């Protein structure tokens, strides 16, 4: 055989390390929550898939393989759901994504002065507090 199973596992581990480290670097470097969700998606899909494929190549046909496939399928379905939920709750709490605002035409970039950022944060907190009080009123 040209490729032994161990070299295939080594290749998968190499790709897995590469994608995991790239995803973590993006988690540090990217400017926004919504952009960082994109970077975390690389860890949760490419990294997990390559690492689990490498471990499957090492384990052969056994119960361990079934459990590894179980972990892979579970993470494949749940990590996009949690990323989506983080984005939805962040948008509900008033954190605006970076980029061009289509209503006013202004470009909000990562290089905005820090005063503006704190101001928007305060307003978002106020919005969240208003929402909470409104919800309490509805409940009572």
């Amino acid at each position, binding site marked *: 055989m040209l490729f032994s199973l161990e070299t295939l596992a080594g290749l998968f581990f190499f790709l897995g390390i590469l994608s995991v480290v790239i995803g973590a670097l993006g988690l540090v470097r990217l400017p926004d929550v919504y952009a960082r969700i994109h970077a975390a998606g690389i860890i949760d899909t490419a*990294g997990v898939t390559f*690492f689990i494929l490498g471990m499957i190549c090492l384990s052969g046909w056994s119960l361990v393989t079934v*459990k590894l496939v179980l972990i892979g399928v579970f993470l494949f379905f749940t990590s996009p759901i949690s990323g989506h939920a983080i984005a939805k709750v*962040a948008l509900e709490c008033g954190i605006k994504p970076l980029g061009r605002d289509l209503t006013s035409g202004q470009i909000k970039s990562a290089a905005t002065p820090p005063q503006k950022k704190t101001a928007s944060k305060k307003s978002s907190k106020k919005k969240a507090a208003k929402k909470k009080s409104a919800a309490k009123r509805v409940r009572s």
Partner: protein
Amino acid sequence: MMLIAGMIGLGVAVVLALVRVALGKTAFDRVLAVNSIGTLIILGIALHGFIMDRPEFIDISVLYAILNFIGTFAVLKLFSTGSLGDR
């Protein structure tokens, strides 16, 4: 050898995600980074089982995957509604 290299790569990624937890501007950055750390730890536990030749660690890994998912959703529900749904 490659298993050790995999563990080292996972460790580097965990340290980078911890930097984001320390620096994160909003709470959602921290939740996202902790979720990623949980995913990396799942892979690390499974790899540790392979390094030590004790594949029983995979069971712990499955359990940790479920706990990671539920924990993230509990924190997000606490953020969005202010309660965990008990009143």
